[in-house]
């Protein structure tokens, strides 16, 4: 009995994919999307439930503190808060389905707009962090796996151990202190220019200065957010490679005279990355959690920072909007990852 367990991913492929193996890719995706819809419904419902049981009268919160009882009553009536809970629930669900996330209690603006305007900053950060992670982690993992028990392997192991053990808010602060304040190399927060506008400037005026500014400002947040993932991917790559390198097909590839580069990257790394891909899909949640912290530390105007603001103000519609958006992102990314997995691994999509 051989069962693979991966505690970093906390989920092995057999539990996730075991029951899909018998399906074609098309069926598989349809089923996956249906599940995704269910998951999003679940998230919406849980958020609604949390809001319903949270202390404090929503009308009160909505009106800023200390409104008159009459005013509260009026708002309750207008907002349908006097309706039975199931009516409120279905109204809410209905709104979500047509993309109406409601209005922020704080700013009266549409939640969709408030979410959408913060998406670019978070995506920039997440993508930059992922790039940092991939560019560093994969070569590091490969080196570590192919030079086992040598100094470079020990170095990589130590690095990944530190990386997964360091809280990113502290790492962010230390980077601010050391690279920002003491060395003066990087600014310590904010996002004076977005990537989009910076590229636009480049296109219109040919001046890359905005791009440089953007790079300079995103450097520390991206490193902060990326460190955990760098460490995680290094770890997974190393152990996956070690496992994969011991497989007979590797020896067979060597025996037929294939250049080491091809053996290592075309065969072994490729096969290592397929399961890692699904692990990373499941880690999107961690990435978002990390983004909340990182954006807070670096005052980076993304969704995470807005979520914390919403939480501080107990602005439920905004909070719900952001959480549901994160869930949608999580589910979609995982469907894409699953499809990729099925595509890359011929054994899954086949009858």
């Amino acid at each position: 009995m051989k069962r693979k367990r991966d505690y970093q991913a906390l989920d092995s492929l057999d539990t996730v994919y075991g029951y899909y193996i018998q399906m074609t890719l098309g069926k598989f995706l349809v089923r996956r999307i249906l599940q995704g819809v269910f998951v999003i419904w679940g998230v919406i419902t849980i958020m609604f439930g949390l809001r319903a049981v949270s202390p404090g009268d929503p009308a009160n919160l909505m009106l800023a503190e200390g409104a008159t009882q009459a005013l509260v009553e009026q708002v309750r009536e207008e907002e349908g808060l006097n309706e039975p809970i199931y009516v409120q629930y279905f109204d809410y669900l209905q709104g979500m389905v047509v993309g109406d996330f409601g209005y922020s209690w704080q700013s009266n603006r549409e939640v969709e707009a408030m979410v959408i305007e913060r998406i670019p900053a978070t995506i920039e950060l997440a993508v930059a962090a992922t790039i940092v992670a991939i560019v560093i982690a994969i070569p590091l993992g490969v080196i570590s796996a192919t030079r086992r028990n040598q100094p470079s392997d020990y170095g990589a192991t130590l690095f990944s151990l530190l990386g997964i053990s360091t809280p990113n808010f502290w790492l962010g602060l230390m980077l601010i202190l050391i690279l920002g304040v003491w060395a003066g190399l990087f600014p310590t927060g904010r996002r004076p220019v977005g990537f989009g506008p910076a590229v636009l400037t480049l296109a219109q005026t040919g001046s890359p200065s905005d791009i440089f500014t953007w790079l300079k400002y995103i450097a520390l947040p991206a490193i902060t957010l990326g460190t955990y993932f760098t460490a995680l991917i290094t770890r997974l790559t190393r152990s996956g490679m070690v496992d994969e390198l011991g497989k007979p097909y590797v020896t067979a590839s060597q025996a037929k005279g294939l250049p080491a580069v091809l053996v290592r990257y075309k065969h072994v790394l490729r096969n290592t990355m397929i399961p890692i891909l699904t692990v990373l899909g499941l880690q999107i949640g961690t990435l978002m959690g990390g983004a909340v912290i990182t954006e807070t530390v670096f005052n980076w105007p993304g969704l995470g920072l807005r979520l914390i603001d919403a939480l501080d103000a107990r602005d439920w519609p905004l909070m719900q909007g952001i959480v549901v958006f994160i869930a949608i992102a999580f589910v979609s990314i995982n469907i894409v990852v699953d499809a990729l997995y099925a595509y890359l691994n011929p054994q899954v999509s086949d009858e």
Partner: protein
Amino acid sequence: MTEDVLRVNDLSTRFFTTEGQVNAVSNLDLRIERGEIFGIVGESGSGKSVTARSVMNLIESPGEITSGEIWYRNRDLVEDVEGDYPDAVDGEFVDLLALSDDVRRSLRGTSFSMIFQDPESSFNPTLTVGEQLAEAVEVQRRASANPRSTRARTREYSLGNYLLSTVLPSQRYVSEASHERAIELLELVGIPDPVERADEYPHEYSGGMLQRAMIAQALAGEPDLLIADEPTTALDVTIQAQILDLLDELQAETGMTILLITHNLGVIARMCDQVGVMYAGEIVERGTLEDVFDGHVHPYTEGLLGSVPDLERAGGRLQPIPGNVPSLLDHEMDDRCQFADRCPKAMEDCLEHPPEFDAPGSDHHEVRCVLTETEYDESRALPADYFGGKERPTADAYADPGTDIDESTGPGNPPRQPVDEPGGDRP
């Protein structure tokens, strides 16, 4: 007209594990003539596969070839390496162990190739069979395009090239011509619909088909020496016969040399010209098929043969020889005949490590056993409990139930002392 294609002298391969040094192959001599099929037979863990991998230079850390020479006859290679490695050249022979890893790597596929025991795990599950064969073809094509530069063969393909090839189709390693050749090869080994089958993945093949594909892959480079490491062990009996037939045919057609490794004496009997019997990292008896089967001297060979009830039944498996599989851990090995503790004819002489004696039969018949020159003498026999607790088998008692021989092989898996498996605990 026979000439040696490979001479192995005094080869020792060791594994340095945390449990200690494992002497997987010790002072091994071997001589393989062009065009013959040389068989190596022995129990699991006797060092057969490690020997093969040593020749292929596939020994990886913590393994290491600690001594010996592997002389390979190849005039082209001599010309190539003469300048860089004058010491490695002797006439038409080159000592492979004196060459750099790069040069040796360049010989794989083109000079030596190998087929493996388990075809299903020996193919990459995520690439099509055709692609993997084409890779092997491409290795050969590139080698013959630069016949005079072993260095160019290996260095032309870099990580940069690989990364480029993922974006630029023109940079792909495998050319269209190689794909076509791969299909031809599939056809050659008797795979129906080779064009379609080439685009299928390994898990879509049956075991026998995959083994055929693997043979095709090994043939891609038209190697001087094909090493077949237990090529039929993982297959059904009927398929086994087909594969052996195929090998036979191919050998007859191309006249290539085969080093066949197996624990199946039936296979040996059917295929081989020369045989080496391995035990505990040593070749204990070697010679022609007749020497070993009919004129064997070593009690171990006798045990092996005695345990096969019917040689004609190719599928028959080795019956176990009583006693423990020998430990190959250096600190647990004594400098004696390694078989003495299981040998029904062990004598005091056996406490010294025996040299290779010339034995009667062909010129090539050599045996590592004192019995070659000395008659068994019961008065000098070792007492039954000489090697400790477990009783040594007597000359006529081979039946000892309860002994199980680990069937797994592989150089990365040095034999361990069996550990008690308490019931109820799942591995």
